[in-house]
């Protein structure tokens, strides 16, 4: 017993401790904190699980549309690459600005820029996001993924392509993808960056990496919807490769479906 006390290093100067030890010695403490004898103590974990609400039932939806004079866009020049050309017999229009009926804008990344609980962590979806090189263009032209989510780069063409990402916060790479080939990458940092094929210089793509699941990319109808938001006040950002960024603030309450429209114009 003497040895035991030496090892647990009781602070004798602390009267409370003294009392506790007294109880232990007497062996009559019903709920004393000292561990059970001869059974391994549970390993205590210092990590506290965050018990804050990080998802909810609110949602924000709306439309992004273009105002102003619609600029004339060039047709993509595919040079003398027959394999590419023959897949676009009608010619391919530049994807720099794709507008739907009523000048709704496609390829706009809409995301919550700020307002989420600061310590919230969101597991990335397990299904990979696909970025295909088909018909010598990237499909989709703008891709948004969550931090940690796998991006699968595919090449469904019959020619070689290279994927050259120009990310700055995430490690950039430039790798050839042979026909039928594919490769996976994941991203750790929130960032929107440009992806190109150096072999076929007209091939362009943008990847937006977002640190949470509250984002959306508009289709031709310019519509977006961000679901499962917790109650809160948010800054919503829209981003377009040519028209830049714009933000609006909105407050959503439990179960509410808020409407938020954006307009972008050429600056």
């Amino acid at each position: 017993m003497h040895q035991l006390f030496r090892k647990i290093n009781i602070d004798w100067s602390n009267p409370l401790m003294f009392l506790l030890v007294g109880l232990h010695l007497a062996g009559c403490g019903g709920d004393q904190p000292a561990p059970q004898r001869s059974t391994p103590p549970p390993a205590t974990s210092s990590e506290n699980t965050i018990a804050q609400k990080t998802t909810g039932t609110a949602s924000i939806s709306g439309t992004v549309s273009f105002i102003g004079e619609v600029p004339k866009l060039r047709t993509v020049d595919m040079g003398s690459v027959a394999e590419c050309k023959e897949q676009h017999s009608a010619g391919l229009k530049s994807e720099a600005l794709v507008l739907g009926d009523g000048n709704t804008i496609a390829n706009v990344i809409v995301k919550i820029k700020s307002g989420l609980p600061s310590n919230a962590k969101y597991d990335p979806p397990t299904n990979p996001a696909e970025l295909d090189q088909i018909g010598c263009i990237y499909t989709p032209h703008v891709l948004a993924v969550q931090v940690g989510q796998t991006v699968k780069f595919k090449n469904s063409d019959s020619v070689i392509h290279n994927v050259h990402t120009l990310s700055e916060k995430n490690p950039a790479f430039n790798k050839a993808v042979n026909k039928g080939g594919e490769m996976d990458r994941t991203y750790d940092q929130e960032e929107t960056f440009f992806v190109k094929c150096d072999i076929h210089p007209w091939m362009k793509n943008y990847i937006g990496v977002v640190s949470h699941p509250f984002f959306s990319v508009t289709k031709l109808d310019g519509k977006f919807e961000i679901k499962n938001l917790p109650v809160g006040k948010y800054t919503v950002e829209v981003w377009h490769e040519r028209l830049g960024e714009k933000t609006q603030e909105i407050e959503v309450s439990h179960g509410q479906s808020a409407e938020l429209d954006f307009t972008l114009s050429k600056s």
Partner: protein
Amino acid sequence: MLTEKEQKHYQPITLNRIFAVTSLLFLGSLIWMFADDHERSWKRYQKQFRQLESKKVEMTYNSQNYDNWLMWTEDEKIRIRAEGDRKAAENKLKKAKDEHYKVDQKFKFGKAKYDELTYRYKEAQAGHKGDPAELRQELDSFTYEGRPLFEGGDSWKVALGKLEAKVKIAENELQALKEKEKDIDKRFEQELGREQILAAQQHEKLEVARMSMGNKIADKIRDLPVLDLTNPYYRVQQVVIDDVIEDMNFVQVPKVDRCMTCHQGMAKISFSNEPHPYKTHPNLDLFLTSASPHPVEEFGCTSCHSGRGRGTSFVSAVHMPSSHQQELDWHHGHIGPIPEDKWHQMHHWPRPMFPAKYTQAGCFKCHAETTDLKGAEKLNLGLALIERAGCYGCHTIEQYKSRMEKRNIGPSLQRVASKIKDQDWTKKWIKNPKDFRHNTWMPTFYGNGSEDPTIGTGRLLNHRYQDGKRQQDEDHRVDTEIHAMTHYIYSKSDVFDVGTIPVKGDKEIGRNTFQAVGCQGCHEVAPDPVEENLASWSPTDIAEKRNQLRREYGPNLIGIGSKTSAEWIYSWVKNPLEHNPNTEMPNLRLTDQEAANITAYLVSLDQKGFEQTIVGQYDDEMLDTIASEFLQGSYIKEEIAAKLASWDSSQTLTYAGQKLINHYGCYGCHEIPGFEDAKPVGAELTYHGSIMVKKFDFGLVQSEYTDRHGHKHQKDHLPHTNFDWFTQKLKNPRIYDTNASVDLDTEKLANLDEVHVINEFKAFQDKLRMPNFGFTNKEVEAIVTALMGFVKQEALDSKIMPRTAKNVFYEKGQSIVAEKNCQGCHLIEDQGHAIKPSLLDWMMEQPEYEDLSRMEAKADLVSFVPPNLVGEGQKVKPDWLYHFLRQPETIRPAVEVRMPTYNFTEEEINTLIKYFSYLEPEGEGYNWVAVDAWQDNAFRDPHQLSLSTTELTAAKRLISKDGHHCGQCHWIGNQEPENKVAKDQAPDWVLASQRLKPEWMARWIANAPALMPGTKMPAYYDTYDPDHPEPESYTNTTPFATVLGGDDREQVRAIRDYVLKTE
């Protein structure tokens, strides 16, 4: 009684009292001494550090968990011992061993006796001493338990064996018990992990509460007064640097640094967020640790930081504040842990510590040959500014000697009359160059060069009151001086026939060419001043600032059209060296048309003129005054009068001009006829940081500051430190001729209205003459950092960068790179590409880029920017590089920026080649290219290669459309790539065999981005590793499994050799 009293001339009682009192006093002072020593400030720092460390260690492990497990271990051991009695097992083993020993001994003694008898019997038999029969009898009758062993039986052995087995069993039983205990310890270690246990053990040493009773007592006793001389916990810690000797006036002693006595956490990474003095050193990769290049055991602290290493208090270590505010804080005891440690400067220590903001000054004494020292960015910036401002034109600085001799900091004035026909322009320029070009590096000699009130150049005349008459005199004097100097340089100027422009130039095309061919690597066309462009001292911001300096390498060309003629510009851009063999402006090999276009563009830049500057007519009377001031040195009054009377005004102007140029030292930066061998006018700066503060003339400059309560205070002097002197000198070079008042909080002149020359007695020639460069506060700070580093090497020879070939060529190469401004266009050692922003602007203006977003344009910029020279030493053949540096040729089709033709000396070229090679890992060194043996094209033989038919077929398959499709971008001999736009094209393979090293090519083909991040060439074989040590485990994942056995090394080699054979 009386006699007794008389006999003794003293009274014992009084004496005893005196003795008692003095011994009490003595005892008191002794106790006081011990107490004082016991309470020295460093001990208190150490105590605080111990608490801090204890808390930190406690946080690294879970003490509750540790204690629980420790208790569990104890309990388990007790339980095991109770279960299987270890004591009993030990006894059992002892018993078995004893038994075995007893029997064994018995046998051994018996055998010895038997052997003896046998021997004696044999001896007797042989006729020696003794009776054989008797002995036989004795032998036969000898019995002992082991006897059957010799007579064929083995029962003894069996018996012994049984006993041995018993021992073994007992041993095993004990072992099993021990193992069980060991298992418990193992479990303990496993559950907690090594780090937790180590932390717990460390914590037990630090934290009294966790010590055993005995240790607790020992911990108290070891630091008691007097007893603490044996082995105290709190003690002075020091390093002795044997090979660095300090001169303590007549005694040479090794350097001793005791800084770590208080700075206890400096090498501990976990203290990075703690306050001083416990804070971790900010750069452990470079300093302190044994893995770093500057381990504390070899360099100490004061070798770099300066200060008094032996000091063990805040004051005696001669810490120096970084700002006046900090000085006040320190002085009033707001310095953190121990407010009692109030600061004052120990004035008699000649090498006070560098204030934190000038710390990098300490690097220079050992790295004196450096132009670009990694990790000392502020120092680098200071050196770059010294170089850009051309301080060495007037101040001899040993490191810049070769450059000083070139006299090309400013343009040559040998032929100024042909360049600037308008003398009025020249006069205005001399008077106020910043009025014409806001960011010119030509400093201001007269008047105020800026709206910044701290910037002024002082006055030429002595006057206490700014009345109208004095002002008028001052203006006359200035204008007359300018007339005289202008007269001199124009009268001595050669004439240079600039000829005519053979073709008509187009301004718009010229503008495009100007932007595209690379002029903006060294020249700006920046009409408007920008705000302070150094946002912070972060390495990125400093790098950007240095790029700005690179873009200002040549003059800002704004307004050039109103300065000189089109013909002159044309002839200059066509061949600068013909104008001036010393110019750093290289030849861009412009065609006549290109040069004419650029000329047309530059001439159009005439919108900017002088806005405020007016130079009046000179005043004959004033001219005579000026001339006579100079004549006074050699002649008496009457002779002067006679001389002046005999000269016409032109002669007087020439005389005064020459003397004034000599006075101001214009020839330090400009080549001026008649001053070819003149000595620089300024003080030598080579060791300026070592000059004793008392040798600086602080003049009558006052200072004022605001205390914590907002009250203004006036001091009748500036703080007497070398850095305060440097700072004010750089901000206002003539301040020490005035009684200006400097606001120490903002470091600006406090009340400008009162600034006037008060020294009525200084003659014109004795006045300060340094012009004003208009440095910003941050620039001044960087320059002061460098200046403070210009110190005599204080017996630090053993610490200087070793003079190996590698270091020498590295430094020389860096110096050439800086001198030629290579980083204006190239990226070298991760620095440079200064031209990038202007090229991006140019790109965005091109019609084909209309459709691009800035992100996309930036991505394409790599096609237009001059190459990143990372890995150049591994990449290109030295012979080729030699040739290229002499006669550049086009390599990248899209890069319109031209590698200019420099007139490098052969030594410079070879130094550059060596420099690039030494930038690479060890073993990549080139041999000096044998210049004598070098002949044009000698290296241009096609590579001697033999490709087998299989390999050739394989190579063709690999480069084809079905393979890597190389022909999409690369020129292959005459075969044009499928990408028709130049920016999407890649270098011609024909160039490869002359230019590239085959080993490098293989790596490039396999994984180019790994060699040069950002390149357009993709990675084709990103797992390729020719140096992989184990062929069996080498994974070669190539998509072309059928080609050359699917071996990527074979495939890469085949492609490489095919490229090399391209013709």
